[in-house]
């Protein structure tokens, strides 16, 4: 009797271990095949032709312009989505107003809508015959097939990241620390920069990293609004697309790999800094 219970318990444990091991294996397989393998593939393809291929890409004026344009779009997107994202997160976390849930749902819309649709919407608004086209034309501002529309669609697509990272932190933080700060003589501005911001900084940095990664990789919406004029409105991702079109595969791989590496390094850096800070605090 005793022996039987023991074997049964053991076998139960063995089954549990098997299931656990199986799930772990599935996770590694899933991530490995879908995330790591393609990255390794691109890395191999980009590195195989040797350094000369890299040199030729980095000296190509079109490639350099594409990098620069991507950097400019990403930079502007990060600044706008970080500032407005924190504002929206503050409003969503702190204020109670009718329609709050609707606003919260709308913030997630860019994740649900295809970037192509976003691009088309901007063309409809700012393109020939669009609602806003006459005003901008009258003021001599070229929106469509130019930088403004490209930044606009990228910002739209990146809106959710900072908001979704920061809002839960603000809810968890509550208002007591901020109230304490006010009673200790800090103005609302001082309170924001000395109490609120430090408490949401990791969420904000994560949001910025995700925004950066997404902005670097954006192609669908930008493809539609930019017109893809090489050396003018061609971003790094559009350059990759054109490189493959023109059978310049190596150039495509090199640019693709650099974009991927920048995103990976960014996320890794934040992870490292964060764990270092946590260790410092014991």
């Amino acid at each position: 009797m005793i022996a039987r219970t023991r074997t049964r318990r053991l076998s139960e444990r063995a089954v549990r271990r098997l299931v656990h091991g199986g799930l772990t294996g599935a996770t590694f397989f899933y991530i490995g095949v879908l995330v790591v393998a393609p990255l390794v593939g691109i890395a191999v393809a980009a590195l195989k032709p040797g350094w000369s291929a890299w040199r030729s890409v980095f000296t190509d004026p079109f490639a350099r312009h594409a990098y620069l344009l991507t950097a400019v779009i990403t930079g502007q997107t990060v600044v706008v989505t970080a500032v407005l994202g924190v504002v929206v997160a503050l409003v969503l976390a702190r204020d109670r107003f009718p329609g709050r849930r609707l606003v919260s749902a709308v913030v997630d819309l860019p994740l649900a809508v295809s970037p192509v649709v976003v691009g088309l919407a901007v063309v409809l608004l700012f393109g020939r015959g669009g609602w806003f086209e006459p005003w901008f034309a009258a003021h001599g501002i070229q929106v469509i097939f130019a930088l403004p529309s490209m930044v606009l669609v990228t910002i739209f697509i990146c809106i959710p990241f900072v908001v979704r990272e920061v809002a839960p932190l603000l809810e968890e933080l509550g208002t007591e620390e901020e109230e304490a700060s006010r009673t200790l003589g800090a103005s609302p501005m001082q309170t924001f920069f000395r109490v609120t911001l430090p408490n949401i900084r990791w969420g904000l940095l994560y949001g910025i990293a995700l925004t950066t990664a997404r902005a670097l990789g954006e192609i669908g919406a930008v493809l539609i609004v930019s017109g893809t004029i090489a050396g003018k409105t061609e971003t790094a991702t559009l350059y990759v697309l054109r490189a493959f079109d023109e059978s310049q595969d190596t150039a495509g791989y090199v640019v693709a790999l650099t974009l991927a590496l920048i995103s990976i390094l960014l996320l890794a850096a934040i992870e490292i800094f964060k764990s270092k800070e946590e260790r410092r605090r014991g």
Partner: protein
Amino acid sequence: MSSGIVIESLTKSFGLFRAVDDVSFEAEEGRITALLGPSGSGKSTVLRMIAGLEDPDEGRIWVDGEEQTPKPPQDRRLGFVFQHYALFRHVTVRQNVAFGLSVRKASKAEQRSRVDELLELVGLSYFAERYPDQLSGGQRQRVALARALAPRPKVLLLDEPFGALDARVRQELRRWLDGLHRELGVTSLLVTHDQEEALELANEVVVMRMGRVEQIGVPEAIYNRPVTPFVAGFVGASNVLRGVVWEGHVHFGHSAVAGAEHLADGAAAEAYIRPHDVTVDRAPRDLSFPVMVERRTNLGWMSKLHLRLEDGQVLVAEVPNDETLGLSVGERAFAGLHGAKVFDAGRVEPSAAEPEPEPFGAESDAMAEAV
């Protein structure tokens, strides 16, 4: 104008709920004044309005002879201690305490010496470089107190400062705060729902209920001369016996208690009697009446006796163990009452008679069963 805190007709509603309704009182300089009341009585809202964290709908607030009502919180120079400490979790204890000095641009040297001084005062010098989440609740609240005191506030506002601590630490910290106040003499306003805390710490007590002031007085007056049934019931757990007034006494069944001189004969009355104002005896005495012991709970040095009166009402008596005469459940005895506070039953609102929940109740019952 007094140099402490003066509150004049303060009123505040949240939506349809009138949280604070025409509240006026003064907190004397250099003293501890307690705002005592059950949760939802508006006492914390009053405190938050004094600090500027809440805008009053009506009324005015003066501190040190200076009107505060229109000022934003940062210009009021008041120390505020929160129930849940509200320490800045991303910085060290030292930086927490220095916060109020650094936002006011005090020099680094001044900050350092003031912070050292305060950490010494609250006995946490050793923990200066720790983070709040590395401290116990009692230590955190002492840091919060040091932080509030650092910029030398004109008054100290304490919002249920011991509410989040366990009973033992609460006792300890209460005694410590009392000592600290004796040393510093800073005008303090303490919000609490714990009558014992208010009576022990405060020089004056403002009892609040449903947004209004019920009674203002020194602890002795609040305890011994409650002016409303609510105060009689809330401050010190009370028995409530219902009866009819006759010749200055409240009569229930064959028994009576004095203290109804202010009521007309024949009026329905309620007598509030503290459990320790009940004595038990085996033989009848003047004005004592027969009771039956229904339940006996041993609390160590005293016992709690549940006594059934002849007319069916129940009386709880707290009697030192050497005066219980070995009475046990089912035995008959005679109870004598002292110091009853009698109110016209027409005035009595039902919620006032609700007994205070007692934190020791559950444990002591278990203890009695074990005995």
